């Protein structure tokens, strides 16, 4: 059951990435609300900051669980890839992991010190919280950019094996890194703003408690402006990232060629234009939702039911936009771990471009060394050997891709990790756990005394 590997990874990665994005936004929003609450002596902001902090702690924990699950699944399905990533990407991973540690303890300290520490101390901890939230994606996005173009890769070939390295400066100069990182941060903030806006509006519309109603609408009002600004910025940043993908014709065409925008041979070998359209639709509904929210906050409305439903949908689609964007980024390079690799193998990105433009260095400097390295990378670069992947490879062979990829794809997934028994067991277990997780969430959010009374 080869296709099961990307399927499970997609599910766990989507859940992980949505939580992580909310976490980035909340890491800034909570300290900001707390600061403003203290400055203006505003109780509403204080209560909201506490509410959001509780939600943040829960999402941080869940993001960790799904992230760990994703990593272990990745290791089980693609051990060679993980092994190579461990050798090469030590520094960006180390940045991310260190920041995860700082963030964890900042969360604990911020939460514990809320009423106990001096305001100054608390704001400093809030600063660590916010900073670490930016550093985690800095490390991980450097890895993602490397998976677009292996910029900065260093390899020394010796008779006693390959020694790996990464030139960090060249890696950060990767043309896809800056747009990807900045777009990710802006996306995380926009998602958080829109979700907070929508949820508080929903609560404001549906709550029977006047205090809660008033406070919720007040918070929604604060969030409405940043939400629409975020939504306005996102297409610009999306365009920037999209343009940077021109350096990787394979990936660019898979997304944009079906929509008429083409580079290189202009062929979409694995068409994911539909996912881009879905993302745009999600985005458009979000814009409608946020505009409706602004209008409602300014002028009010009588269609409470319809609006509350719209705001719920807006929150859900904000998360859906992030998930679909991430899947789009991943699927558009399917079935290759390194997006530019099919272009390298078919000659549309020359080896000298890799060397001179992207800082890839192979020692000793010889054609033979490069050939040996390329062969080595070929051995773990494929994601799976499902029929759709083989179809893509077959079409690429007509453009000059080594036909060996067809055979290599047969064993690109660790077969013992995708046996029928393991997949059935996984499905059963995850289903049962999702049931209990839903029960947990219901228990956690229901006020005391209203459950099982």
């Amino acid at each position, binding site marked *: 059951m080869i296709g099961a590997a990307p399927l499970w990874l997609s599910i766990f990665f989507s859940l992980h990435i949505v939580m992580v994005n909310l976490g980035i936004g909340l890491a800034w929003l909570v300290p900001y609300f707390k600061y403003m609450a203290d400055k203006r002596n505003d109780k509403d902001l204080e209560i909201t900051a506490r509410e959001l902090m509780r939600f943040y702690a829960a999402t941080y924990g869940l993001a960790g669980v799904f992230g760990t699950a994703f990593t272990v699944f990745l290791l089980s399905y693609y051990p060679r890839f*993980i092994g*190579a990533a461990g050798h090469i990407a030590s520094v960006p991973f*180390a940045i991310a992991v260190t920041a995860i540690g700082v963030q964890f303890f900042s969360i604990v300290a911020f939460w514990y010190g809320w009423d106990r520490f001096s305001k100054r101390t608390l704001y400093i901890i809030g600063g660590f919280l916010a900073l670490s939230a930016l550093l985690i994606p800095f490390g991980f996005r450097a890895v993602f950019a490397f998976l677009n173009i292996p910029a900065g890769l260093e390899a020394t070939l010796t008779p006693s094996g390959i020694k790996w390295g990464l030139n960090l400066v060249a890696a950060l100069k990767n043309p896809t890194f800056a747009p990807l990182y900045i777009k990710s941060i802006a996306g995380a903030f926009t998602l958080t703003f829109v979700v907070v806006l929508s949820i508080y509006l929903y609560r404001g519309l549906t709550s029977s408690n006047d205090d809660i109603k008033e406070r919720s609408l007040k918070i929604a009002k604060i969030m409405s402006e940043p939400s629409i600004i975020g939504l306005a910025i996102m297409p610009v940043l999306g365009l920037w990232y999209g343009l940077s993908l021109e350096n990787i014709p394979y990936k660019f065409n898979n997304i944009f060629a079906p929509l008429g925008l083409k580079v290189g041979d202009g062929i979409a070998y694995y068409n994911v234009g539909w996912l881009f359209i879905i993302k745009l639709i999600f985005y458009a509904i979000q814009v409608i939702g946020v505009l409706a929210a602004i209008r409602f906050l300014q002028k009010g409305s009588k269609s409470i039911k319809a609006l509350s439903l719209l705001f719920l949908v807006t929150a859900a689609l904000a998360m859906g936009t992030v998930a679909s964007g991430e899947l789009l980024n991943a699927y558009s390079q399917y079935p290759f771990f390194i997006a530019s690799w099919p272009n390298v193998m078919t000659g549309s990105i020359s080896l000298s471009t890799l060397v001179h433009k992207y800082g890839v260095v192979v020692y000793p400097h010889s054609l033979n060394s490069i050939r040996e390295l390329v*062969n080595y990378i070929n*051995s773990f670069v494929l994601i799976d050997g499902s029929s759709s992947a083989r179809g893509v490879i077959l079409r690429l062979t007509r453009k000059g891709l080594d036909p060996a990829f067809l055979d290599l794809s047969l064993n690109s997934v660790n077969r013992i990790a995708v046996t029928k028994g393991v997949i059935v067991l996984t499905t059963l277990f995850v289903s049962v756990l999702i049931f*209990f997780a839903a029960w947990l969430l219901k228990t956690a959010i229901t006020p005391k005394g209203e459950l099982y009374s």
Partner: protein
Amino acid sequence: MSIPSWSSYPLPGLRALSFIGIEVHWAILQYVLGLPFMTFIALLIYLRTKNGKWKRIAKTLTKGFIILFAVGAATGTASEFGLVLLWPNLTEAAGRYIYFPLYAEIFAFMMEVIFIYLLWYGWNRFSDKALVAISFFAFLGAWYSAAMILSVNSFMQGPPGLKPAFVPGPHPKYLYSEGYPRLTVAVPLDILHLLNVTKLLSLGVNVVTHNGKPLTVGLTVSGVKTKALVITMPVSIVQELVREGFKGFLLKDSVLVKANLINSTEIKVLAKNPYELHRLITIINAYQYVPATYLEGTSTTLDPQQLGQVLLNIPVKNYLDPILMSTVKYFGYATITFKSPDYVPTLMHAIGSALVVSSFTAFAGFSLRLLRSKDLDEDYRDYLRKALVYTAVFAAIAIFYQGFISGHEMGVAVAHYNPEKFAAIEGTSAHFKSIAGVLHLHGITKLLAYGSMRYSLPNYDKIPPHYCQCKLTGYPSYDCRPPLMIDYTYYGMVFLGIIIGIYGLIVGLIALRDRSVLIDKLLGIFRINSYIWKEPLARKILSLSLFMAFLAQLSSTLGWVTREVGRKPWTIYGMMTVDVASSTNKVVHETGPLVAIALFYISLLLVLIITAYKILWKSSERR
């Protein structure tokens, strides 16, 4: 003779960093293993007695592990990334060959998260019976998680099919000169044909027989149905092949070529048989190294010399992978780690350690609260007394189990399957002053390990220092025996265990006062038979509780150090040495980043201790 010390093995910096990371994780997760079980038992007692104090005890214990679980999850993530970054080859091997327990552990982790938080959020919302059920799944999730991870660690200590080099007895045999220790390996016949079998047999490879015939098994490798011959191979050869495979050697640079182990006749056969060649290339998954024309089946005869060159330029890993995969399938890909002879004792001992540490720490918390709080109302005092009795009895039972049952089983497993480690633990070298030797403990050790005092312990000096070295390449050049320093760590663990054992016995007896005449008489001997918790001596005993909890942690740490350092120079016994497991990225080997990360970890641990103290102790003090 120089005593091989811990730092004489490769990469002491990386190992120290891993030690700090994993020790921080282990120190925390022992509570996640122990406290939920104690909560479950307390809730069961509450269900039976309907005394609300028991529910309160359970709630306090739950509060403890909720905080620690969150931190444990964070340190676990950091440890996981640490393994990937510092030991990528080990990580890759684990993911490829023994992935199943790691994969299954994820579900355990999710189970833990859900039920531990369900217990917390649902405390005032569920019925008592539901709480008992949830606490059952909470501790089960933690134990299930431990069962999976420890199976991987056990595999690393002693893979199934391991044939040790020491045969115990009154006149023990040392089989190192006969190619022991050996590992059982299944080699696909397609690959075996490429090798010079006669030469292999002369290097100490043995064929496993069944009913007098060579044992072969049918299995599928890389999608090709084949047969594999089951053999036992000296670890000196296995580790060399694994080293060459994971370091990225090409076959032409391998010991297989240097020692003329390649069967050139078979290459000529393959040159004439495209079908067989295609089959071999599929099994070793090496299409990108072979010209497409070789595989089309159109050319009936290839130039054997050219084909030989092609095969020589394929990485060793491609040849090694089907051998390791066949071996894994021979033992069962989902069960191989659980078949380690080390597994059951390890699981018993690790859970025992967690119960000891958790119960002594909980006992310390309750006893300090009782000692330091003034003007307690009678209700609260009664709750504390109950909690003290519970945790004291629990600690006494746990330390008894740990010392006499699981500890014994663990020791027997080490004695039989890791004789080199056993020799180092006992410090049986004439050039080393061991604790066991000074205290004349070898006799009792023989009795415990082998059931007879007439048996002999493995002599460290009789173990060849280079038993794991591949003679053809001279690798590894360092001493293959574990460092003798583990004699100190092991006996440090034992003596600390005895101290906390005696302490546990005393507090356990005190807790059971008035419940048995025998116990009361015993307490009389110590003059602590009046109202115990108020008596000065008893108060002195209680005031030691925090120190005892610290000793329990220290003892547990020393046990882990003995286990892990005692495995050196292996990362996976008989297969992979530490330097092979490590990253080749130069950044990882620089001192500055290593020290910085180590300091970062230590500071995290300090923050955790302060946080736990403030949240668990200070907040309840205010109340």
